[in-house]
């Protein structure tokens, strides 16, 4: 049952997925293109600085790509079923949980393709690069972070897309409502309570979102292929 479900998702997204695999493979290569120590020259401190700076500049694209892959996979997982009003899956001899898990598993399996592309690209990009002393390449670490980020965004989008448009609007609305409440509520309460002058609820909210064990922690931190 898993294999046909995998085939179904693959059939739906194969063209886009091929592009995403190419992008995942090419991004680490682009990140180091033209870098490294020219033959015959010592890897000096200026060269090291240039490498780290370039790597950090490109680093922003990795989580963006991971998010794009996760979102596209998550949205596409339910797309056909939404179009057909879910009648077909509901008529199959599966519990709703089984169907959902099969679908989820198929998407995660497909997500491995760009991850493998990233892993190969990252290793190729750093294999022929002579790094100055003190700098290291992190192809495996970057790939693992890339995998987690894809799975996080895929899971998020898969869960949201599983419901009706009404449910998705409700979830998004709640999130926006929380942000607005944090923004407006803090200023309002600061007029009455000193605590809200000293502590910014907005900052606390976003810190909670992006720092461990916050849900968005996976996209923060170092995404550099080359770092100290």
């Amino acid at each position: 049952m898993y294999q046909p479900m995998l085939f179904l998702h693959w059939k739906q997204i194969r063209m886009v997925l091929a592009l995403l695999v190419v992008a995942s493979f090419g991004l680490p290569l682009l990140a180091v293109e033209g870098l490294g120590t020219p033959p015959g020259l010592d890897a000096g401190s200026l060269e090291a600085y240039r490498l780290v700076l370039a790597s950090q500049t490109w680093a922003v694209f990795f989580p963006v790509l991971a998010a794009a892959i996760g979102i596209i996979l998550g949205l596409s997982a339910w797309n056909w079923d939404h179009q057909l009003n879910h009648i077909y899956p509901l008529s199959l001899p599966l519990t709703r949980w089984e169907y959902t898990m099969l679908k989820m598993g198929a998407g995660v399996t497909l997500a491995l393709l760009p991850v493998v592309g990233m892993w190969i690209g990252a290793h190729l990009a750093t294999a022929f690069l002579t790094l100055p002393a003190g700098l290291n390449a992190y192809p495996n670490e970057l790939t693992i972070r890339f995998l987690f980020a894809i799975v996080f965004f895929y899971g998020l989008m898969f869960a949201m897309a599983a419901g009706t448009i009404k449910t998705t609007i409700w979830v998004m609305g709640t999130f926006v409502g929380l942000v607005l409440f944090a923004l407006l509520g803090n200023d309002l309460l600061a007029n009455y309570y000193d605590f809200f002058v000293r502590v910014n609820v907005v900052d606390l909210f976003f810190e909670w979102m992006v720092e461990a064990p916050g849900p968005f922690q996976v996209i923060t931190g170092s995404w550099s292929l080359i770092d100290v």
Partner: protein
Amino acid sequence: MNNAIELTHVTWKASKSFELRDISLRVPVGSIYGFLGPNGSGKTTTIRLFMGMMKPDSGGISVLGRPVPRDMKPILARVGYVPERPHVYPALTVGEQVKFHSSFYKLWDKGWATELMGRLHLDPGQKISRMSKGETGKLLILLALSQRPDLLVLDEPTDGLDPVVRRDVLSAILDYVSEVSATVFISSHLVHELERICDWVGVLDGGRLVAEMPMQQFKNGIKRIRVADAPEVPDNVPFTLLSRSQDNGTGSIETWVVRGWEPPMRHYFDGVGATVRDIIDLDLEEGFVELLRSSRPQHTNGS
């Protein structure tokens, strides 16, 4: 288990304008049950309720002796379902869809599926999105029959199909039923189609089950009777009086449409001083129309 499908006092409300009210329905095992009703009467909703796709507000449902929705997984493994509108993935080819579908059914009959594909002139390489309505209908029948189901649930399976395709589809269904003693639940508003193949009939109108009986009884028991000097208030009638109307320009002659008619009932009219002038057999469609007319509130049909 005497009934393949059993609904007991099922109600389900969609909105102020539509609800299923107190539906009690029994589909005997091995029968071909025709579920008749005009468009919008609630046929598809009833099917979705016993297929476990929706939960009733109240009442009980069992299919193949198991409770719905609790035991849906084993139930659906034994049910072949053809919905009102095609539910298969348009981007797949016929062969891909058949392979996908087969992986969920332990009793899938590959040989029968291949045979049906040839018999129904389906091309395994053809993309579903490029198929005509008739071809898609045939594919849905193939999928449902190749599961070797104990119960076939067909929701308007031939609606919009041309006569040739319709004949192919019905013949495939009847062949299957003659080979395996499966129960068939077939909903339609095409009365003549059901008349030929069904042995039980249920009539739904405005969310209510207005009749349920063996087809033979339904076909034979509905008559149009022309009566002279009919009593103003008929008492103790041995049949169900569906409607009565004054014949134009004939003074004392009325036309009665009755259900449950049998020849000895003619004596009733002698007893009340009336005379039977004529007894006309109604075909199923006329009977169906009269039944609906009689079941609806008087102000809606003006009679």
